[in-house]
């Protein structure tokens, strides 16, 4: 479904990605793990069109995305839940959701989707006219996910959804990822919480220094010695 080929991205003189390639099949949960600064977020932002790609290809169902604007990419059903949530803190929860559902592909269902989200995340319904900035960390993350779902994505990119959350909340987020996947939405997940994310993923990629250093089935990656050494703290 999504195919990334030989992606190169640079910030000024600094090269952040050296030829990253990924494949995601329909219905999968693919997890990308790697250390801070390894290039995970850069990869996600590049796919979503937020970063300018120096070279390489990004194909969604065979269509090139690498020169498309973020808006055009959203219209094709690929939506990012960015790292750090990036909500609109002074807008109400409902307004946040409305902005999320503004894409042409979902606009006619705007009210229906809004109701659906308020039902799925009751807290968002109860506080719909409260400013988003007043929500707690976990609630904000839910809002960020709900906002992304408003545009009826086919493939959802989630960048570190568990960041800064307590174990309990992290578990809820992961459960939600599975639910979303069960709705038929393909998920690409970037996580630092390697252990838990590998549990729910079908496949995984390990990124270091802007390169894919390992890839394979989730279980396989879990068992890999290098990963244990680098990210799980084993000698």
């Amino acid at each position: 479904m999504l195919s990334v080929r030989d992606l190169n991205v640079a910030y000024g003189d600094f090269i952040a990605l050296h030829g990253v390639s990924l494949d995601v099949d329909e219905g999968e949960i693919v997890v990308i793990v790697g250390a801070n600064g390894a290039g995970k977020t850069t990869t996600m932002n590049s796919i979503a069109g937020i970063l300018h790609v120096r070279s390489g290809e990004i194909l969604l169902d065979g269509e090139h995305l690498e020169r498309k604007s973020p808006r055009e990419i959203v219209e094709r059903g690929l939506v990012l839940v960015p790292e750090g949530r990036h909500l609109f803190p002074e807008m109400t929860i409902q307004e946040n959701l409305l902005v999320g559902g503004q894409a042409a592909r979902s606009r006619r269902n705007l009210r229906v989707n809004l109701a659906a989200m308020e039902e799925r995340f009751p807290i968002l319904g109860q506080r719909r006219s409260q400013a988003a900035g007043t929500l707690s960390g976990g609630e904000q993350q839910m809002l960020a996910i709900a906002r992304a779902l408003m545009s009826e994505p086919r493939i959802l990119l989630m960048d570190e959804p568990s960041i800064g959350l307590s174990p309990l909340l992290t578990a809820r987020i992961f459960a939600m990822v599975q639910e979303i996947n069960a709705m038929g939405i393909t998920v690409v997940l970037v996580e630092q919480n390697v252990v838990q994310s590998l549990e729910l993923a079908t496949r995984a990629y390990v990124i270091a220094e802007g390169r894919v250093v390992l890839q394979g089935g989730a279980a396989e990656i879990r068992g890999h010695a290098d990963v244990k050494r680098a990210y799980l703290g084993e000698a």
Partner: protein
Amino acid sequence: MHAALIGQLTIDGLLVGGVYALSALGLNVIFGVMRIVNLAHGEFVIGAALLSAVLFERWHANLFVVLPLAFVLAFGLGALIQRAFLRRLPEDLASAEATSLLMTFGLSYFFVGAWLTFFSGNFRSVPYLTGAWTLGPFSIAQARLAAFVASGIIAVLLALLLRYTALGRSIRATSQNVQGALACGVDVERVRTLSFALGTAIAAASGCLLILIFTVNPETGANVTLASFAVIALGGLGNYAGTLVGAAVIGLAVSFTGYFATAQVAQAAPYVLFILVLLLRPAGILGKSGA
């Protein structure tokens, strides 16, 4: 008698404050979305003011014709400037902010020169609604009241646009979090262009109203820019409600210092207030806290 005088000065100050508020709102919309401090803002205000003066002189075109015209022209001009220049700000100079400052500083003088060419250096005003209504001990200048009411209507329309339309939500979303807006598929480039155009158009609208009260020439733009910034500095950058409070304070300060001190002090009042506010809240005015 004394109470009546205070009342009169208050009325005069608040009515002018309405126009300051409108100009500052335009500046605030641009800053909110683009993070650009537009030093050429006053030039757009003055350009529209001079245009309406000239149209009035020639054809007695009244405010209600000129304001929409100036609004549309300025909207186009703003969009053009954003597309042609501001969007192409290079990123390799000291900082994006520095470059945008230098660029809008250049733009401001470009337009001073342009207005001097088109309108000459004459001081102009529009002798429209020159009378006053008497209300008890107070006299209410028709032009001031008209400008105040019109400013209020435009401000309310702007508020409605920002709150209840998809474009308005996109503008607010972009000004609060660009990354988030991008992730939601908001066409941020378009929003930036529209915001700059809208801010410029509001500036023009305030210019059409300002000329009912003030006498201006092409070189008075910098005063308007500074006064508008003083309003924002007082009210909070990006804070639309605070803008109204700031404008009232500036209007009153000018009106009262003009009476109790001298016209020179009144002229300096916005700058002095501006500098004082900056010094008392050097970082704080970026914050959205406060009124």
